[in-house]
C-alpha cells in the first residue's frame, strides 16, 4: 500500500513537471535552497554539487553535509555529503548524494576539479549515478559536467554550467536520456554584502525558465536570502549563519499546491590555507 502511494505521488510529481530524472540534478546546499537555486555564479564549497567552477577559490578544507526535504515526504529526501580541499593549484572535491528510500533510490558519486586561469574559473566533474528501483534492478550511468565563472566588471559576474554534456542514456533500449541542461547566470553585486542573481535554465526536454535569487548580509555573521523561479512560481526564503569554524544554512520554499520544502546544510571550515581568494 505504501509503495503504491509513493508510486502514485511520483506520478503526480511527474504531472507537475518534476520527472524522475530531476532528482539529484537540482542545486544543493542551504544557500541554494534559500535563493531559488540561483547559484551558478557563486564561489563556495557547494560547487561540488552545483557549478563545479565554484570551488576554484577554495581556501579551507571543508566537509559539507546537507538534508533536503521535499514536501515533508520521507521518500523524497536527499542526503548529501562532500569534501572540498584546495590544492597547490586549484581545488579538488568529492561528493556523494542519496535520494529516495528502499523501493526507489538514486545515488550519485561526484569527483571534480576546478582552477582559476586568467580571471576565469573553470571546473570539471565526473559523476556516477546509480538508479535503483525495487523489483527492476540497478543501473549505473556516468555523466560529465562543466562549469565556468568569471567576473565581468567590478559589480557583475557571469556563470555558466553545462550539466551532463555527455548526454548519457538511462536505458539503451528505450533511448531515454539522463537530463541535460544549461544554466546561464548573471550576478549583480553592488556591495560586498549584497548579491542579486538572475539565471536562465534550459533543460533539453523542457521550456527554459528563470531563477532569481538575492542574498543580503544583515550583520557580520547573518545572511538572509530569498528567491523565486518562473517554473513553478515557488517562493524561496533562507537564512545563513557564518561562524569561524562552521557555516549553517537553511532554506525554505513553498509550492502553491504541494506545500513546503526544507533544506538544511552545514559546512565545516577545517584548515585555512593562505591562498588568496575571490570570495569575500
Amino acid at each position, binding site marked *: 500500500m505504501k509503495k503504491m502511494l509513493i508510486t502514485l505521488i511520483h506520478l503526480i510529481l511527474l504531472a507537475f513537471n518534476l520527472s524522475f530524472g530531476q532528482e539529484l540534478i537540482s542545486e544543493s546546499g542551504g544557500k541554494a535552497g534559500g535563493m531559488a537555486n540561483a547559484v551558478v555564479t557563486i564561489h563556495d564549497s557547494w560547487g561540488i554539487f552545483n557549478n563545479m567552477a565554484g570551488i576554484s577559490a577554495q581556501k579551507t578544507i571543508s566537509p559539507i553535509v546537507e538534508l533536503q526535504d521535499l514536501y515533508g515526504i520521507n521518500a523524497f529526501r536527499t542526503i548529501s555529503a562532500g569534501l572540498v580541499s584546495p590544492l597547490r593549484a586549484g581545488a579538488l572535491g568529492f561528493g556523494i548524494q542519496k535520494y529516495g528510500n528502499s523501493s526507489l533510490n538514486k545515488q550519485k558519486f561526484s569527483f571534480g576539479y576546478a582552477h582559476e586561469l586568467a580571471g576565469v574559473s573553470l571546473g570539471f566533474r565526473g559523476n556516477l549515478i546509480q538508479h535503483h528501483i525495487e523489483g527492476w534492478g540497478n543501473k549505473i550511468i556516468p555523466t560529465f559536467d562543466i562549469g565556468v565563472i568569471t567576473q565581468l566588471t567590478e559589480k557583475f559576474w557571469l556563470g555558466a554550467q553545462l550539466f551532463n554534456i555527455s548526454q548519457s542514456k538511462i536505458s539503451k533500449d528505450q533511448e531515454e536520456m539522463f537530463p541535460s541542461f544549461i544554466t546561464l547566470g548573471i550576478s549583480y553585486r*553592488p556591495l560586498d554584502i*549584497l548579491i*542579486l542573481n538572475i539565471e536562465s535554465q534550459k533543460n533539453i526536454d523542457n521550456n527554459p525558465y528563470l531563477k532569481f535569487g*538575492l542574498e543580503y548580509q544583515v550583520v557580520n555573521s547573518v545572511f538572509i536570502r530569498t528567491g*523565486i523561479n518562473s517554473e513553478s512560481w515557488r*517562493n524561496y526564503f533562507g537564512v545563513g549563519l557564518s561562524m569561524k569554524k562552521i557555516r549553517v544554512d537553511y532554506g525554505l520554499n513553498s509550492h*502553491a499546491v504541494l506545500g513546503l520544502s526544507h533544506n538544511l546544510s552545514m559546512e565545516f571550515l577545517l584548515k585555512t590555507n593562505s591562498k588568496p581568494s575571490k570570495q569575500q
Partner: protein
Amino acid sequence: MNLIIAPCLLGICQSTKDLEAEDIIQNLASQQEDGNYDDIFSAMLDYYKNPINLNNTSREELSNLYILSELQINSFLHHLEKYGELINEYELQSIENFDLETINLILPFIEVKKSSFRDGNQSFLERIKTEDNHSLLFRYARVLQTKEGFKKEKPIEKRYLGSPDKLYLRYKISRPRDFSFGFTLEKDPGENLIYKNKGPEFLSFHAALFNKGNIKSLVIGDFRIQQGQSLLLGGGFQLGKGSETITTTKRSSLGILPYNSVIESGFFRGIASSIQVSSNLLVTTFYSGKRIDGNLSVVTTDSIMEANQEFQSIVDNGFHRTINEVNKKSNIFQQDFGGIATFKKDHLEIGFTGIYSQFDKHFSKPINNYNQFEFRGRNNYNFGFNFNYGWQNFYFFGESAISRSGGKGLVTGFVSSLSKEVEFSLLVRDYQKTFHSFYGSAFGENYININEIGIYLGLKIRPSKKWLFTAYADQFKFPWLKYQVDAPSNGNEFLFRISHKPKRAIKIFAQVRYEKKGRNLKENLTKTDIVVPTSKINYWVNVDYKVNDNISLKSRIQFSSYEQMVRETGYALIQDINFKWRKFKLGTRFAIFDAGYDNRQYVYEKDVLGSFSIPAYFGTGARNYYLLSVKATRKIDFWFKYAYSIFQNTKTIGNNLEQIEGKIKSELKFQIRYKI
C-alpha cells in the same frame, strides 16, 4: 509666478515647477492600470499645492510621496538630527544618498522654511484671509451623442430622469497643518440636479483645523481615516501593485483626512478628532452617521415593522439616474464610531484600533456558495493592532485585525534599501474568508480584504543614473470560492520593467506584466462550472521625448494576450503630441486600438486639472482628444477637452441605457478655476 527673480535651482526654475509637478503626477499615474485614481491625483496635487516643509515633517509624510527610498528617508532624518534645520533646498545635495534625480523629483512637493516662520504673528482670521490656496472650481462634461436613456419618447421608468450634463463645483481654502474648509457639489449624467426636492444630488462638506494646541486635528463633515496598513481604516490614497514596486507596498498612518472627492461611498460623515494626550500618545476618536444607497428586500406584508426591514445589497456607484436607482438612494442609515490610540517612541509606532458599525436595517445578502461567508447582519465591530518599526535600512510594518464574525486579517512585511542601488520589499497577507472590514483597503489582489493569502516580493535596481529596473512577483491563493470562480483557486502575477533615460529629454520604458488566475470556463455547457487557469500578458513600450520647450511627444504601444483554452490578442498604438506656448498648453492624442473586452487596454489620458482618467480602450477603432489649458489671468485658469472615438464594424456603442447609435462617441469637457 514671478518669472524673472525666481531662482533656478539644480536646473529647474521655479517657473517650471508647475509643469514638472503635473508631469510627475501624470507619470506616476500613467504607469498604473485600472482602479480609481482620482484620489491619488488629488492627493499628489494637494502636496504640490501645499508642499511639505522639510523642517517640519515626518517619516509618514515623506514616504507618502512615493519618491524617496527608505535609505534616503533615513539619511534625511539623520541629517536633520545631526545638523539641525535645513537652510534651503540647496542643502539637499549635501545629504548622503540624495542624487540630483531624486531632488528634481521631490522639489515640486517640498519647501524649506524655518519651523517658527509659518504661523508668524498673524491671527487665525488673518491667515484665512491671506491664504493663497483658495479657489472655486467648476467643471462641465457631456457626451454629445444621445444615449438610449435620454430618449424622451421612452417610458419614464426606462430612461434617465435628468439631463446628460455632468456638473461639478468645488470650493476649497486650505493651509497645510493649519486649516481646511471646502465643499463639493456634483451631478452625474442622467441625474437630476436636485434630488426629490430635498437638496442637491451630491454634496460633500468639511471644516478642519490642525495643530491647535493639543488638538492635532478636528474635522466636521466628510472625512476619511488612514491608519496602519489600511486593514481597518484605509482612507488615504494608495497605489496598489504597479511599476513602483517598493514604496507602494507599505501604508502610513496619516490620521484624519478631510474628504472632498466625488466618489459617493467609502467615507465618513460626522466628526473626528485627534488629541495629543502626551508626547508619545495620540488618541483619535470619530463618529459618522450617513445615509447610504441600498437594495431593499421586497416586503410582502405590511405587518413587518420598520426595524425588521431588510436590504440585500449596498449600492456604492453613486448613480441615481433612473427611477429604479433613485429608489435605492439613501434608504439605509449607517453609523460608525471608533477610536485609535497610537504610541510613538523613536523608531517604533504601535496603534490600537476599534470600530463599531451599525445599519438601521438588517443586511441580508442572498446566499450563494461563493459569498456565504461575507457580512450579514445589522452590526459589525473590528479590533486591530498595527506597528511600524525602523531598523537600519529596513522598515517593518504590519497590521492584524479581527471582526465580529471571528474572522481575522493579517498583513505584514518590510521595505528596505539593501544598498544605494537596490531596494527590496516583502509583504505577506492572510485575510480569512470570514474577515469583514467595511473601510479597509489593505494590500491585496482582491478588491476587498477577504479570502486571500499571498506573498509579494518587490525589487528595484538602479545600477546607474540612466537605467532603472523594477520587478515584482506576487503569489496568491483564494481558499474559498469567488465571484465567477467556483472553486478554491490560486494564481500568480509578475511585472518587469526596464526604464532607460539616455538623455534628460528622453525617457523610454518597456514592461511586461503576466497574470495567471483561476476563472470559470467561459461558455461552459456542463452543469458544474469548471475553474481553469486563465492568463493575461501585457506588453508596454513607451517613449517620452521632450523635443524642446514647446513640444513634447509620447509614443506608446500596448499589446496583450488573454488565454483561456484559446489565445486572444489585443493592442493599442498611441501617439501624443503636446504643445506649450506662453499661457497655452495643448495636449493631443491619436490612438488606434483593436482589442476584445478581455484584452481591453487601459491607457492613461491627460485630463482637466484635478480630474483623472484611465479609460479602457476596446473594440476596433480610433480615439482622438484635444485638451487645451489656458492660464488666462493670475486668478483664472481654464481647461477645455474634446475627445472622440470612432468604432469600426459596429452599429451601436455601449449597452442598454448607455447605448449610442452610430459609430462615433464624442465628449466635451470644460473647467474653470477661479483663485479667490
